[in-house]
C-alpha cells in the first residue's frame, strides 16, 4: 500500500493531459491554416493570378499596413478602417438589439399562450422563408441609402433566429415548474418575468448567438448595396477599384471581428448561464 494515487499526483496527470490536448489542438489548427495559405500561395504564384488572387503574403501585409494606418499606396475608402468597422459593428448591434427586443417577448408569448400562437404563428411562418437580402431593395425604397435601411434588414433577418429559439425554450419548460410557480403565487407578468423568461434563457442564449453571427454576416451584405460607409462599403469600393488585396483584407477583418465578438460576448454569456440551467434538465 505504498503507492496510493494521491490527489496531487492525479491533479498533475490532469494538468499534463490538458497541456497535451491544448498543444495538439493548436498544432492541428496551425497545420489547417498553413495548408489553406499554402494552397492559396501556390495557386496565386503558379497561375500568376496577382491581380485577382494576390498571394497571402501580400494580403497579410496589406492587413497589417491598414491596421497600422501606414499604407504605402493611397487609401481609397474615405474614413479609416476603424471607423468603417465601428460603423458596421454599431449597425449590426442595433439591428440585433431591436430584433432581440421584439423576438424575445414575442417568442415567450407565442410559446406559452395558445391564443397568441394561433394569431401570430401563421404570419411569422409566412415571412420566415423570405431571405434577409430579399428585404434590401424594399429597405432602400423605404429608408434610402441610410443607416436605417441597413439596420432594418439586419433586424428582419435576425428576428427569426431569436424568435424560434425563444419560442422553443418557452414551450419546452418543464410543466411542473410552471405549476409550482403558479401555486406559489406567480401569475401574469410576474410569471413571465420571474419564471418563463429565466426558464427559457438557455434557448434564448442559443438564439442570440446564432443571431449575432447572422447580424454580422447580414450587415456586410446590406452595406454592399445600401451604405456609404462600413466594411461592406469598403468591399464594394475595392471591387470597383479592382483592388483584390484590399477586398481580401476587408474579408479577413470581417472574419476577425466576427470571430472575436463570438468568443468575447457570447461565450462569456453562455458560460455564466447555461451550465447552471441545463445540468438540471
Amino acid at each position, binding site marked *: 500500500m505504498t503507492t496510493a494515487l494521491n490527489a496531487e499526483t492525479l491533479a498533475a496527470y490532469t494538468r499534463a493531459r490538458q497541456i497535451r490536448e491544448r498543444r495538439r489542438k493548436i498544432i492541428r489548427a496551425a497545420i489547417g491554416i498553413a495548408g489553406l495559405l499554402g494552397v492559396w500561395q501556390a495557386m496565386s504564384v503558379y497561375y500568376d493570378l496577382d491581380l485577382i488572387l494576390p498571394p497571402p503574403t501580400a494580403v497579410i501585409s496589406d492587413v497589417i499596413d491598414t491596421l497600422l494606418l501606414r499604407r504605402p499606396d493611397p487609401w481609397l475608402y474615405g474614413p479609416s478602417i476603424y471607423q468603417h468597422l465601428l460603423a458596421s459593428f454599431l449597425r449590426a448591434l442595433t439591428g440585433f438589439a431591436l430584433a432581440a427586443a421584439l423576438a424575445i417577448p414575442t417568442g415567450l408569448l407565442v410559446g406559452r399562450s395558445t391564443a397568441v400562437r394561433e394569431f401570430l404563428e401563421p404570419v411569422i411562418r409566412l415571412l420566415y422563408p423570405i431571405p434577409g437580402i430579399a428585404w434590401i431593395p424594399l429597405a432602400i425604397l423605404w429608408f434610402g441609402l441610410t443607416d436605417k435601411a441597413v439596420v432594418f434588414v439586419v433586424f428582419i433577418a435576425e428576428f427569426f433566429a431569436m424568435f424560434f429559439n425563444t419560442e422553443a425554450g418557452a414551450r419546452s419548460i418543464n410543466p411542473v415548474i410552471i*405549476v409550482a410557480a403558479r401555486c*406559489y403565487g406567480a401569475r401574469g407578468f410576474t410569471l413571465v418575468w420571474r419564471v418563463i423568461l*429565466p426558464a427559457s434563457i438557455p434557448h434564448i442564449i442559443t438564439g442570440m448567438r446564432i443571431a449575432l453571427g447572422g447580424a454580422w454576416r447580414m450587415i456586410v451584405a446590406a452595406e454592399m448595396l445600401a451604405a456609404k460607409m462600413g466594411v461592406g462599403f469598403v468591399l464594394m469600393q475595392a471591387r470597383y477599384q479592382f483592388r483584390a488585396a484590399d477586398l481580401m483584407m476587408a474579408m479577413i477583418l470581417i472574419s476577425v471581428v466576427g470571430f472575436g465578438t463570438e468568443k468575447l460576448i457570447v461565450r462569456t454569456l453562455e458560460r455564466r448561464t447555461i451550465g447552471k440551467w441545463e445540468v438540471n434538465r
Partner: protein
Amino acid sequence: MGASAATAPRETSARIVIQAHEINHAYEASTGWSTALAHFNLEIPEGEFLCVLGPSGCGKSSFLRMLAGLMFPLEGSLLVHGEKIIGPGLDRAIVFQEAALFPWLTAAQNVGFGLEMAGWKKPQVRERVEHVLDIVGLSAAAGKFPYQLSGGMKHRVAIARAWAMTDAAVLLMDEPFSAIDAINRAGLQEHLVRTWLAEPRTVVYVTHDIEEAIYLADRIAIMTPSPGRVGAEIRIDLPRPRDRNSAAMAALKEEITAKMNEMERRA
C-alpha cells in the same frame, strides 16, 4: 423532548381547515368518462398531519390537485376555512413528487420565492428563509443552486419552500419522496417529522406506502380502489419520533393491510 410533547395536539374542538363534501369527479377521455372520485368525504382539523393512503389510480393526486386549485371537482364542495377553492393560492403550499425547484435560483431564493410573491419585504423574507432552512438542516446549502444539491437535498429545499409560507393554512404533499431510494427516503421522512415537530402545520400527505403513512401521520385516510372515496380512517397515536421497528407499528401495518385488502376484494 418528552413523548407527550411530541404527539399532535388533539383537541376534538380544533378548527376544521379542509372540508370535502360528497365530491364526485370523472375525467373525460376519448373512450368516454372514467370516474376518479365518488362520494369522497373528508374533514381535516387544524394542525393535523393527515396521510391519504390508497392504491395506485384511486384518485389521491386528483384530490390533491383540487386542493391546490389546479382543477375543480365536477360535483360536491371543497372548502378551505369555509371558502370554496377558486384557484391556486398562497393559503396553500405544495410539494410535488419532483422537487420542482427553479434551477436559476439558489436554495435560499427558491425557499423565499413564495414569500416574495406574497409581498413580504426583503429582510423578513431573508429571516424566514434562514429559519426554515435551519429547520430542514440545510443552512450550509443556502447559496447553492439546485444542480449542486443531491436529490434528497432538493426535496428538503422543496419542503422548506412550502414550510416557509406562514400564511398557508395547509401544506399539500403528493408522494414527495416516492422517487427516492429507500435509505434516503427514511432520512427524508425523519427530516419531515423533525420539521413538523419544530413548527407544526396542517399537512395533507398523499402516499401509497403504508409504512410511510404510519411513520408520519396523526391520522390516515384510507381510500378505496378507483373510483376512490375514504373507506376507513385510522388514528395513529404513537409518540414521535416513531420507531419503525416497534411492535405497535407492525400491528398497525397488519391492520391497515387487512383493511386495504378487504376494500380491494369488495371493489
